[in-house]
């Protein structure tokens, strides 16, 4: 009896990839430079950093393993805890302010208005300006111009620079960050709003729905995916807050506006390298958790854009 040709069918019964075309070797060469450069410059330093976070390394010289000492110290260090409190609060407030402003502007710019293109052009300008440079400009406005104006009209609370007030400085940081990051969200919302078919509005309007009702029941559900993307990207960016703070307050007054990124960078000169690497590791986990949480919280409610 002739033996039938063996066909390897694995456990699932689907033929194994015996007859599959070969991958052309050149494709590996296409991919390799990217993987190589990326691995050496991003994941590798990250792993080295995590390694040192379990040591007492100060940035040079000898070191020894100290286990989780750095991590335990982090959770009782008021400077670090304050930085996390400030950074999280800042990210939440800024993302809300930015998204409300961006969505409102996008609704306006996609309505029947005059000079729509010119207005859109103006609103997007901040996107191409360096955050640190425009923050220096705002620094002058907040610390010199605004107090002068307040003094001339006799408005007491603003006669001192808001940047020097530990309770108000963060508001200036939120405003300038929003100024700089609204355009990115704005363009995404404009694209989202233009993808909503106009007939839906007309039908809703014919049914007697008020503008607010049309926004709540027609627009918002249809652009929910865009809101999600903007919010996740926004929070992720704001958690790394650095440029604007450096230019406006330098983390002060005191340490009232010190972000986590600033604390981590202090490990470069401050001699607590390993300790700040532990801080960075915790910060990374937090970044991932916050992003995942946002995606999960909105899952099922937001169709993909």
């Amino acid at each position, binding site marked *: 009896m002739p033996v039938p040709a063996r066909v390897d069918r694995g456990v699932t019964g689907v033929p194994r990839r015996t007859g599959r075309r070969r991958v052309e070797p050149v494709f590996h060469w296409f991919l390799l430079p990217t993987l190589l450069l990326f691995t050496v410059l991003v994941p590798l330093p990250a792993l080295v950093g995590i390694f040192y976070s379990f040591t007492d390394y100060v940035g040079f010289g000898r070191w020894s393993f100290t286990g989780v000492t750095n991590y335990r110290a982090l959770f009782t260090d008021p400077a670090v805890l304050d930085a996390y409190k400030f950074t999280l609060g800042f990210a939440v407030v800024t993302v809300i302010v930015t998204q409300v402003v961006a969505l409102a502007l996008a609704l306006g710019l996609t309505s029947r208005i005059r000079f729509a293109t010119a207005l859109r052009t103006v609103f997007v300008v901040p996107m191409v300006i*360096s955050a640190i440079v425009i923050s220096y400009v705002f620094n002058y406005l907040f610390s010199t111009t605004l107090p002068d104006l307040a003094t001339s009209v006799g408005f007491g609370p603003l006669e001192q620079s808001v940047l020097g007030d530990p309770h108000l400085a963060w508001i200036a940081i939120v405003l300038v960050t929003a100024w700089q990051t609204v355009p990115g969200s704005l363009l995404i919302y404009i694209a989202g709003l233009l993808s909503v078919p106009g007939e839906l509005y007309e039908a809703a309007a014919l049914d007697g729905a008020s503008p607010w009702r049309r926004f709540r029941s027609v627009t918002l559900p249809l652009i929910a995916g865009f809101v999600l993307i903007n919010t996740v990207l926004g929070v992720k960016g704001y958690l790394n807050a650095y440029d604007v703070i450096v230019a406006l307050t330098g983390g002060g007054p005191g340490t009232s506006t010190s972000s986590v990124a600033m604390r981590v960078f202090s490990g470069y000169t401050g001699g607590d390298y390993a300790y700040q690497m532990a801080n960075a590791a915790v910060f990374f986990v937090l970044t991932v958790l916050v992003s995942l949480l946002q995606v999960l919280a909105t899952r099922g409610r937001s169709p993909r854009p």
Partner: protein
Amino acid sequence: MTAPTGTPGPVLPDPERPDAARPDRPAPATRTRRRRRIGAPSLPLTLALAAAALTVVVPLYVTVAMALKTPAQAADGNAFAPPWPLDGHSFVTAWRLTRFPVSFAVSLGVAAATVLGTLLLSSLAAYAIARNWDRRRFRWSAYYLLAAMFLPFPVVALPQIKLTALLGIDNPLGVALLHIAFQLSFSVLLYSAYLRSIPPELEENARIDGATTGQIFRRIVLPLLGPMNATVGIFAFLASWNDFMMPSLITADPAQQTLPVVQYIFQSKFGTDYNTAFASYLMAMAPTVLVYLFAQRWVISGVTRGAVKQ
């Protein structure tokens, strides 16, 4: 930073939505026009938006006005007053203090290297990934790159400073390489989503005619990637040109700093020399703003294309 530090969510090639990345989508501008035709334009809404636009215009006006003032007028504190008499000396002083030609050249060099490197590396990698998506090795490479979108610079900054010093690239070259590395994930994802929308028949025909994969990439795929090259290039350029965090930490020699970083000198030594400081800020902002104003339709459609690619 964080600009539209636009890294949209999952952009992996999606076989169920082949039209997700249609290159032939009408530009947003034309659609706005179509929509606006219904009914008369609203004047109150236009005025409200114009008022809101002042929040953008006023800080820019202040920058220009302050730069053109005499030192005496700049020191009087009223930022909104129009400059009179006009004084252009501040630009000369700022030019000298920031060594403008040098820092401008460094900024431009870093940004150009970032754009070219990002375009070349990520289009090649995305092509390999998109055409071998059925292979685990390529698929997992894509996931590997994607995961790094959650790895922000502050987390890896300290070891990167050490690494670049060790490799002797604690200079603008190292900054450019790092800019490329952080741009790769997002760019590869944009490209591979776009490549899924290009039918492979063109490439197969060329292959039958005896073209090698390298030739196919150069002569067929690369030209087809045109609009995406613009998008990836704009994101890479803005992220690199405007960055402060990375060059300020990586570049060891202050004489090789980029334009945004050299502005810090006005925070200390020349702290009261406001007209010079603002002239310098203006010179740092002007290049991108001017290019943007002339090419705004192109920039906006490019950025939008990237943003909607989720």
